[in-house]
């Protein structure tokens, strides 16, 4: 049977419960999602878009869905200690939103649930919710069908939100759980905002699936930084779809970092719709054990004089598998587009596997586009050089791996976060948990 069918049935059976709790705009989007879902089968492993990731294996677990929006009963013991990060922290426990202690009101910036937004910013919700996401992605359709709430980050025109917003996603349940998460970021003209999202899993004995759809609307001249960091457990699967629409002169940075995880599939769809928009898409994964990290990116240039720069780096050890599929599209009549795409990978063990598909589709002549992909090992000579100077082989390896991923980290436009990332990657490469030292989330 189609693995998606049980979730459609679940929705059909509890339709009222689901719809009662949600804003009207979310319920409207469900119609199309339900139709699309019922007509598609889960892509099998090896199919064009899911060459390396087995969705059927992920959906083999019978996950529960928190349809009644039950509050999580556990105690929240968490404080993020990134020094001077001074973020506005919010928590999402499984799929429910909790404002953190350090959340401070800022004029011009709103962080609220979609249910609150339906009352306070109905026009924004109407204008932006579900507009970018498309139901032909099975993961998005499933999310749209079951999502009951989510977060709206709304920045008013011209407002420069200095304090970054941090959203901490925590998975903790005593049964296998499908957590349905939804984020909508709307940056009005001339505004700027930085968002940091951390994924954690607390009760590591259970299978979890987090389904996440993020929509980012970057209006004229706005700047949006969106960092995502995953530190979860081998039992955690993550299916994420991130949609960005960039209007003229906007500047968007998206950075996806996977340090520990089970099976992760991150889809990035970036629609460059306005002239002079700048896009930076970065990704990094350090994967060992049985970790599986799959990134799928699609940058659609449909306006002239835009620039995009994409770089994904993977370090794979043990039996980890990595996959990258990137597509840059330049539509007709978009002269002076510059688009660069890179995917560099290190296979650090015999059983580590990497699949990469960097693709270009160009329909305009006056462009500069390039892509590069490499799969290789650490430089033997550099290793030898360091060993001759008394650095142990192990340490030399770590140093080189660290150097290898450092340009992705260097792209982070938040100084303290960048420093912390260097530190986390170092710990991760040392074989320790990549947790921040004082992050008590896993203790």
């Amino acid at each position, binding site marked *: 049977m189609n693995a998606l069918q049980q979730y459609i049935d679940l929705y059909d059976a509890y339709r009222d419960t689901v719809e009662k709790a949600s804003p009207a705009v979310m319920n409207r989007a469900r119609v199309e999602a339900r139709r699309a879902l019922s007509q598609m089968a889960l892509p099998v492993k090896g199919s064009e878009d899911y060459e390396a990731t087995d969705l059927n294996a992920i959906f083999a677990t019978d996950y529960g869905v928190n349809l009644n929006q039950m509050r999580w009963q556990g105690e929240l013991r968490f404080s993020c200690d990134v020094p001077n990060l001074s973020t506005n922290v919010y928590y999402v426990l499984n799929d429910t939103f909790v404002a953190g202690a350090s959340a401070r009101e800022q004029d011009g910036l709103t962080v609220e649930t979609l249910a609150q937004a339906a009352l306070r910013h109905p026009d924004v919700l109407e204008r932006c919710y579900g507009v970018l996401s498309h139901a032909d992605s099975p993961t998005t359709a499933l999310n749209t069908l079951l999502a009951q709430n989510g977060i709206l980050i709304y920045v008013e025109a011209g407002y420069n939100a200095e304090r970054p917003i941090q959203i901490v996603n925590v998975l903790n349940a005593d049964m296998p759980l499908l957590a349905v998460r939804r984020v909508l970021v709307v940056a009005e003209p001339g505004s700027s905002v930085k968002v940091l999202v951390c994924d954690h899993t607390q009760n590591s004995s259970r299978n979890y699936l987090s389904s996440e759809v993020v929509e980012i609307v970057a209006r004229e001249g706005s700047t949006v930084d969106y960092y995502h960091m995953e530190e979860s457990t081998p039992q955690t699967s993550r299916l994420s779809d991130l949609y960005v629409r960039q209007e003229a002169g906007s500047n968007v940075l998206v950075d996806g970092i996977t340090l520990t995880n089970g099976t992760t599939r991150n889809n990035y769809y970036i629609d460059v719709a306005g002239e002079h928009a700048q896009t930076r898409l970065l990704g990094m994964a350090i994967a060992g054990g049985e970790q599986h990290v799959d990134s799928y990116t699609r940058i659609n240039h449909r306006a002239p004089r835009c620039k995009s720069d994409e770089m994904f780096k993977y370090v794979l050890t043990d039996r980890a598998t990595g996959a990258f599929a990137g597509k840059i599209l330049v539509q007709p009549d978009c*002269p002076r587009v510059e688009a660069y795409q890179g995917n560099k990978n290190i296979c650090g063990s015999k059983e580590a596997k990497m699949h990469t*598909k960097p693709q270009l589709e*160009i329909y305009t002549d006056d462009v500069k586009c390039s892509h590069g992909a490499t799969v290789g090992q650490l430089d033997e000579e550099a290793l030898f050089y360091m060993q001759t100077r008394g650095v142990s082989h192990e340490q030399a390896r770590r140093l080189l791996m660290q150097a290898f991923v450092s340009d992705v980290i260097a792209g982070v436009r938040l100084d303290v976060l960048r420093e912390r990332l260097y530190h986390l990657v170092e710990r991760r490469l040392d074989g320790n948990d990549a947790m921040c030292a004082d992050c008590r989330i896993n203790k």
Partner: protein
Amino acid sequence: MNDRDNNSNKIISKAATDEYKYGFVTDVDTTILEKGLSEEVVRKISALKGEPDWLLEFRLKAYRHWTTLTPPRWGHLKMPEIDFQDISYYAAPRRKSESAEIDPELKRTFDKLGVPLEERLALSGMAVDAIMDSVSVHTSYKERLAELGVIFCPISEAVRDYPDLVRKHLGSVVPYTDNFYAALNSAVFSDGSFVYIPKGVRCPMELSSYFRINAAQTGQFERTLIVADDDSYVSYLEGCTAPMRDENQLHAAIVEIVLEERAEVKYSTVQNWYPGDKDGNGGIYNLVTKRGLCRGNGSKLSWTQVETGSAITWKYPSCILRGDNSVGEFYSVALTRNYQQADTGTKMIHLGRNTRSTIVSKGISAGHSQNSYRGMVKVVPRATGCRNYTQCDSLLLSDTSGAHTFPVIEVGNDSSVVEHEATTSKINEEQIFYCNQRGISTEDAVGLIVNGYAKEVMAKLPMEFAVEAQRLLSVSLEGSVG
């Protein structure tokens, strides 16, 4: 800006009216099998060629498998539905008299194409197998090659004279189950060349086949099989043309190459099928499966292709590097203009240890054409120490054309290094300006730059071909300056 546009429009329209110089039709009596495809037709083709039972069996198996398949749709191509029942699968120029070696009309045709069939006229050191529609017309230098034990003959003759060799290798690299067009070809293939190079022999001359489609409403389904035994070497060239017609004609060929220990094969193609007119009417659909199996250790297979013709090209010459230390190479220049579409590239499958492969692909798109590179580099876990370098560049000469790159890289171990690089851009204006400054017209400058851009590949072609290919490139480019 407008001036420039006008100017370039003028040049483009001039280019579009440039005639395809091989577009003539030879007036020769041709036996054409009725249109349509059925088991009956497969049996008839086999009977016409007087084939042994095992080959008929092979064809029928392929045909039955073909009926279960649907045409592949994954190419970046807009291809109308092909009615496979509306094609004649066999066309043979009839011999006027039994006595004459070659029909003078055919001889004239091939002379006109620049492929002299008479040995005294031929370029020294090149043996030619000329194939018109479904049959081989003539093979030159057969005797001289035979002295060395080299077999170079039409595959239908090889089936008769060397059944064991053909039977052993036919379908061993491209099985009939491989894909839709391979199954079709296996069922109805007519002629093609068979080459066998015995152990330790370095073939003293270039072997070449020249394919010509002449009859209307037919398809050409040739099949080439090259077997290079231990320590042998051969360089093989392939050229092709077709008359100008409004209809689309199908060309679905298979090339199989088997390389034993330390053998080396160089396979070069200059593909110049009729590309259709300036509005995209007519032209050949070139849907080809080419693959080499480097079975022996230390063997080396090198594909070089210059693709300027065909309305649609769907072709991926591949190397299966099974022997340890074997080497695969792929050099390609694909030029598309008007409404041509090309989806071409290669597959390098690294199965043996320390195998190496190089891919250099240069795409040039002009007019309203679409040009795609599609490639795969796969390194299996046990193939340690492998190395691949891929470079694919695209040059866009008009703002209505498209250039696309679809590579797939799969690496399954930690001692292999795979690199892929691709760029897409238009011709550097500074370079054109530099040439202009020195009195070189824009058109010549573009020709110069494109030739320089393609040089890396051209340099891999045998000398006679390189001259031809270079000329072809500049003729095709003429007026494509945007």
